[in-house]
């Protein structure tokens, strides 16, 4: 089994995604050394120092993936773009709804659960919109 097939079936997307992961891992390694130095010389909690490189790694990969414009590789026309935009809005609403229900089941505060789910839904939509817009612009040049 080829592990790259887990990333994507398309070889260009596979190559780009693996590149982002490698870059992220390299930054994570460098950050980890910085965090060790901080751990030895400051009073910052170890858990925070441990979490920073991991979160940086995850955020870096997601941002690079979104900005690279490889997610919507089949969106070439204005119609496809608008259709996908509409689909993303419904997907975000669906995601926020499921998230809110899960939060309400786990937490007791309804207001807090809805607020967090709303923010998550908006962030999801923003990421999807940027990714779609970048992909569409990239595809227009081809």
């Amino acid at each position, binding site marked *: 089994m080829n592990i790259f097939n887990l990333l994507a079936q*398309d*070889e*260009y997307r596979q190559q780009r995604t693996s590149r982002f992961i490698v870059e992220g891992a390299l930054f994570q390694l460098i950050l980890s050394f910085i965090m060790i130095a901080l751990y030895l010389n400051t009073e910052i909690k170890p858990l925070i120092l441990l979490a920073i490189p991991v979160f940086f790694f995850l955020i870096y990969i997601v941002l690079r993936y979104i900005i690279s414009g490889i997610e919507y590789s089949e969106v070439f026309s204005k119609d496809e773009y608008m259709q996908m935009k509409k689909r993303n809005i419904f997907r975000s609403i669906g995601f926020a709804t499921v998230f809110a229900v899960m939060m309400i089941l786990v937490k007791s505060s309804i207001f807090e659960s809805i607020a967090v789910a709303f923010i998550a839904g908006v962030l999801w939509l923003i990421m999807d919109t940027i990714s779609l817009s970048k992909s569409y612009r*990239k595809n227009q040049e*081809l």
Partner: protein
Amino acid sequence: MVNKIKLARMEKGLTQSQLAEAVGVTRQTIGLIEKNAYNPSLQLCLAIAKKLNKTLNDLFWEE
């Protein structure tokens, strides 16, 4: 890497989407290859050449 895929594809009367589907990649990848913005793997080069009934020399050799 300069290539003549676009020309060969048009001669064959295929769209980017049709070629992409036939060789198992996305239309974006075919577009990038035609624009010389991405160097495909040998496996993909062979799949494209077979689909277009061309040899690798026909598609990728620079005179």
